[in-house]
């Protein structure tokens, strides 16, 4: 406790001589506030200590993730097909699922569009996004155009991915996933 702090408060006068306990002497009792400062209600914009508040949550999230991976790994084996054979092309030929949307586009548009322009402009567009949508509005309801556009792209992309992954069979023809399954992870 600094001298300055004591000067600014008005100690209640003690009637008798100061009491001494274990090497410390009570000089006065300050009414009202706790000595560590005023308590206040923390709002969402106030900051809190990362330890323990954030680290505990991160630890739980990390352990939950590890648990999910371990459980999946115990119950589902990674696929392993026959050894690679350049002479034997499977039908359909499928790219990994995260490229299924691009593969679906390739079946519909010229390769230059689907294979180069679309992926190229997606990456460039994503990188440019913060500089295009540069308003100072943050809440989703204050930036409806950006949110709607982005959501539309996501819906289209998920739809294309699902079609390419599950609904395409031999010769990239349409199949129903509950009749023929051609998705590979």
């Amino acid at each position, binding site marked *: *406790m600094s001298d300055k702090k004591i000067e600014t408060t008005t*100690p209640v006068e003690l009637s008798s001589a100061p009491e001494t306990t274990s090497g410390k002497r009570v000089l006065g009792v300050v009414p009202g506030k706790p000595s560590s400062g005023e308590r206040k209600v923390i709002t969402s914009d106030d900051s809190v200590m990362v330890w323990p508040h954030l680290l505990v949550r991160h630890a739980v*999230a990390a352990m939950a993730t590890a648990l999910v991976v371990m459980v999946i790994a115990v119950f589902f084996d990674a696929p392993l097909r026959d*050894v690679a054979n350049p002479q034997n092309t499977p039908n359909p030929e499928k790219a990994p699922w995260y*490229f299924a949307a691009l593969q679906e586009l390739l079946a519909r548009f010229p390769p230059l569009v689907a294979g180069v322009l679309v992926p190229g402009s997606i990456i460039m567009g994503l990188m440019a*996004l913060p500089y295009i949508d540069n308003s100072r509005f943050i809440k989703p309801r204050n930036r409806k155009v950006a949110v709607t556009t982005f959501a539309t792209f996501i819906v289209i992309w998920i739809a294309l991915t699902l079609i390419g992954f599950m609904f395409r069979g031999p010769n990239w023809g349409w199949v129903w996933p509950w009749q023929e399954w051609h998705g590979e992870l």
Partner: protein
Amino acid sequence: MSLDENDQETVVVTDDEQTLQSDEDLIDRVRNTTVGKSIIRSPRRITPRDRAAGHWASFLLHIYPVKIRKEELGFRYSWYLGVISTVLLGSLILSGLYLMFFYVPSPANAYANIQTIQNDVPFGQYVRNVHRWSAHLMVFAVAAHMARVFFRGGYKAPRQFNWVIGVVLLVLTLLLSFTGYLLPWDQLAFWAVTVGTEMAGYVPIIGDEVKEVLLGGPTVDSSTLLRFYVLHVAVLPSAIVFVLMIHLWRWRKDAMFDQEREDADE
């Protein structure tokens, strides 16, 4: 205890502090043993200023900011997708290191190595499963992280460039997953990569050259496997860890402060 009166510490004790002190007695007693002192070398940090200093000085905590806005704590803010992606990356590095002990990247060995891993290596099948499913989940988690950051406006000033770095991380994640896809050298791997790399050939003018650099020849063969292996176990992991460090460093700098905003208050 007989101290000179001038040496006595002057304190103002409130009820609050007295209860606090008795709660801490046990921890302090553990700390004050010879073993306790050797493990925890700093005194108990009580005041916020003191705790912040302790956080600041800790090597393990240095990737985190000392304080964070309360809003960022909850599930609704981030869905913890950044943590989840990072944990999956850690799981991939650990399981991948184990698999590297038993794998030779050549068409003559690769497939048989995977069979050995699955049938003979202790926990081989399990570790391969962890690696495979972590990889798929990481692609998903990173993409979802990006979507979540978009909808809460996390790319707005002053955080624009960290979004750009995040897009780089997404691309690196996809490349890591794709290069790893070839390594088992089974039909699935071979033809998925054949289809995927055909896209490189569509680049105007230099398409064939790009494809040739990627594959080490006109088709997927032994040099492709070696190239993808080197990219998968050395080049891309180093790159993603490096870029991730910049991503986290910038997050750490920004996390304490609210963004510049013009939203009307509710």
